[in-house]
């Protein structure tokens, strides 16, 4: 009895103790459980947070394996270093029409849509639906950029892209050949060019280079041909295909005459294969094998090539596109940077655009400072489109008149307009149809496409164009003064 009582008492005591500690241990157990559970859940994070990567369609990148790609790559490397945002280039097709096809395709597939797109100056109207309005974000940058340029990227008040690289058509010439045949200056008119080309061609062929031609230009079906043909017909007073007021002016005698003249070049001073040369083939052909005396190209490509390969400067010069009886004109080219509306990294894309535009502005300011101190070493005709040039204008060539293709007025229809125009011009160049018929059917086609009315070209319109660009002369490096070359521009 006594034993039992004792053990019972002990047991009761133990239960009592455990009940007391239980109250406290519930909370402890709860905390421990929560901790353990958090340990289980812990570790579901990725090892590291992926840096943001944005994609960039840069029309200047990846056309070939030249230095140009490296410059673009280095710029992006700097950007990545500064911001931690990785940028990946997408390869772009060679011609601007193919580029448009790809960019439009990618933009419409939301998942693959590139963040930053190079938008050719002629495409804002076509791509305006797929790109976001940049006006609210880039006020500071825009103030430093030529307002006309900004306007050309604005569609119905929406800034589709920020002007980035501008370009104008220029005429390249072989300095050595001009000197050899006694010319002190590059041709100023198409007539002069024809004369010089024939003479040099004959001379060079006599010297043994049988496949030498006087003048090459990109005649393959592409925007390059549009630019060339537009320059020809404006020079002759043939209008701008579609005038700024929406008049379809392409069917006029001056334009027809300018096409006929170009068709006449083929087989005379230009090779037959000129109609299958894309811009890339033509410029390659001109730079490297040196089979022609004159070449109609773009200022930017020359500047970049010279930067790549300074020896080009000694051989090749750059001047305004020749004038015709009416005027002289160079086509405006280049591209701006737009942001895809379905981009998931808008902030980063804006950062990239700001960075690139700032770099560009800085570069041009540095260049203009350098020029004002040392005299123009290397004048970039494309730069004037961006920064105010108020100095170092003395002793310069007459300014080249810059004309824009009728992309603004045609808007989203411009692609069709351009394709129809290219086809008409090519049919004339290839001798498939006579120029007047081609012009007449093109006029009908354009009426069908745009719904605009045909009419005569407004000749005055060209003179109204702001004279924006001028063509530099490549100046020899100090010490190797080339007096005659210097004289060319006096």
């Amino acid at each position, binding site marked *: 009895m006594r034993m039992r009582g004792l053990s019972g008492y002990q047991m009761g005591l133990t239960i009592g103790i455990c009940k007391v500690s239980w109250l406290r241990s*519930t909370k402890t157990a709860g905390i421990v459980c929560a901790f353990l559970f958090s340990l289980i859940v812990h570790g579901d994070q990725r090892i590291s947070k992926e840096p943001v990567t944005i994609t960039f369609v840069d029309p200047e990148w990846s056309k070939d*394996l030249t230095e140009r790609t490296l410059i673009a790559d280095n710029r992006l490397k700097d950007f990545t270093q500064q911001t931690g945002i990785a940028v990946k280039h*997408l390869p772009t*097709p*060679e011609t601007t029409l193919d580029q448009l096809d790809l960019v439009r395709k990618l933009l419409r597939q939301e998942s693959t849509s590139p963040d930053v797109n190079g938008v050719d100056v002629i495409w804002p109207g076509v791509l305006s639906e797929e790109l976001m309005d940049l006006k609210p974000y880039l006020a500071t940058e825009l103030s430093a950029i030529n307002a006309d340029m900004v306007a050309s990227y604005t569609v119905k008040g929406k800034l589709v892209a920020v002007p980035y690289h501008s370009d104008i058509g220029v005429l390249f010439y072989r300095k050595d050949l001009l000197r050899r045949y006694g010319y002190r200056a590059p041709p100023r008119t198409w007539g002069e060019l024809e004369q010089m080309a024939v003479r040099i061609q004959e001379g060079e062929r006599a010297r043994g280079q049988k496949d030498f031609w006087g003048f090459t230009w990109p005649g*393959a079906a592409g925007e390059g041909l549009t630019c060339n043909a537009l320059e020809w017909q404006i020079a002759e007073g043939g209008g701008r295909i579609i005038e700024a007021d929406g008049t379809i002016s392409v069917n006029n005698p001056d334009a027809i005459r300018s096409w006929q003249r170009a068709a006449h070049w083929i087989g005379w001073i230009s090779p037959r*294969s000129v109609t*299958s040369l894309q811009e890339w*083939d033509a410029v390659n052909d001109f730079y490297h094998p040196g089979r022609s005396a004159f070449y109609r190209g773009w200022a930017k490509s020359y500047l970049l090539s010279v930067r790549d390969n300074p020896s080009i400067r000694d051989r090749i010069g750059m001047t305004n596109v020749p004038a015709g009886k009416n005027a002289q004109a160079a086509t405006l080219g280049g591209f701006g940077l737009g942001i895809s509306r379905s981009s998931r990294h808008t902030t980063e894309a804006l950062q990239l655009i700001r960075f690139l535009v700032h770099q560009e502005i800085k570069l041009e300011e540095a260049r203009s400072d350098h020029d004002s101190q040392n005299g123009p070493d290397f004048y970039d005709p494309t730069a004037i489109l961006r920064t105010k040039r108020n100095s170092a204008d003395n002793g310069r060539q007459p300014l080249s008149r810059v004309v824009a293709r009728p992309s603004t007025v045609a808007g989203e229809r411009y692609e069709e307009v351009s394709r129809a125009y290219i086809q008409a011009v090519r049919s004339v160049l290839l001798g498939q149809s006579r120029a007047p018929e081609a012009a007449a059917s093109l006029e009908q086609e354009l009426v069908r496409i745009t719904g605009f009315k045909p009419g005569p070209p407004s000749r005055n319109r060209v003179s109204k164009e702001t004279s924006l660009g001028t063509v530099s002369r490549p100046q020899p490096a100090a010490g190797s003064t080339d007096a005659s070359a210097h004289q060319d521009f006096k």
Partner: protein
Amino acid sequence: MTGSLNTTGLGEWLRQVTTRPLLHRLKIGRHLALCFALLILMMVICDGVLLWQLRQVRSQVELLKGVDGELIEVLRVHGDLFSFYERLGIAARSENQDQLITVSEALRADVLEEAKRTEAVFRHLPSQVKVDQTVFPTIEAIEDTLPSHLDAIRALATSGEWAAVRDRTDKQVQRLEFISSQLVKDVARAVEEQRTQAAFNIALVEHRIVFTAIVTGFVTLFTAAFFGWATALRIIELRLEARAQREQSEAALRQAQADLTRANRLSSMGELTASLAHEVNQPIAAAITDANTCLRWLSRDQPDLEEARAAASRIVQDGVRAGEIVKRVRLLFKEDTLQRESVDVNEIIQEMRLLLHSEATQFGVFIRTELAAGLPQVMGDRVQLQQVLMNLMMNSIDAMKDVDGMRELIIQSQSGENCQVLISVSDTGVGLPPQQADKIFNAFFTTKPHGTGMGMGLRISRSIVESHGGRLWAADNPPCGARFCFTLPTSGEKRDSVVSADRAEPGGRHANKPVG
């Protein structure tokens, strides 16, 4: 919001659960119930985590599959591009316009097919595969660019510009190949990263499963152990309570029994009072007679001292006899204190015979004893055993009161089986009530006229005998009367031999027959 709802719901549930009678008795309080809920929660969590981890592994496997698909596709595109470049290069070097056109037609068809295939592959990649967002556009750009290259090359070939064709093939198409090989590198790196990530994730899953299993196992084990321990403690507590209660009630029962026994004894003694008075009176009367004789002898002129002494010593004997009777009676009246001692059964039988002598004589009953000599001593309470004998003998005398013919009470003692002592009390009375032989030991069963018996005598006698480890039973005593037998274990016998005594009962009975 839902959290507070849940907790109030849980609280309600707990309250309901803990107020159920069984759980209430087990004192499963809120904490223990919470403990139980925690157990279930842990199991659910463990299962959930394991399922989740299995899903992770599956998704990682699918990821790896998709990633491989991506790499294979990119490699395929690169390989195709390489062969494109090769074929185009051969055709370009041949400077054969027809061959180049044929090749370019074939290549164009190939490219278009490839483009479709690539798109299909990329569209069907598992969603968790992190495809570098440049991969598909790059491939698309390459595949879109190739046809226009073919167009350009064809145009150049048609116009005989073979140098330009070669230039284009070597620089432009090669450029694409360069881009695609860059792409292969990038994708391979990305795939490697994803593989590493997947491997890391799978390792993480492994760790998590092991960790979860161990932690949940331990927590469950500890919670269950605590739960079990607390419940077991509570059950032990309940058992102890029940035992204490039982002991208490048993003690009360014992007390009641003892009281009853004593009451029975007292009532028996009450019934005996007249005969006891007579019994006591006898020696006193004898003593008085002897005293007178003694006086007479002493008061003679010549006192006969011899006779007087003899008379005086008879007085002393009478006094002693009277004193013994009184002592015995007093013993029977004494309060119970269980005192086990070695008792000689024959002695008790003789004492009770003496005690009940006058009662028996009153009703003309002759008491005869047949006692076996040399019986072993019995461990027991003398008074209680006397009470048993008194009950049985009183019953027998009662049963013979109204019987004509021989009235004989025979008390026998003998050695029984298993070192037991068998005592039997036989009478020639009315005998046992027919068909009620088994009921006579029940409490409050009596055959006596109303008011004369409590119906407790046999019940008490049986409980006394059983408390001594013996058995008490009744049998007929042919030709008439009843016979009550009881066994008592001797001091040499263990008390646990009750069972064997039971088994020996019929034999014992049989053995008794010749004696009866």
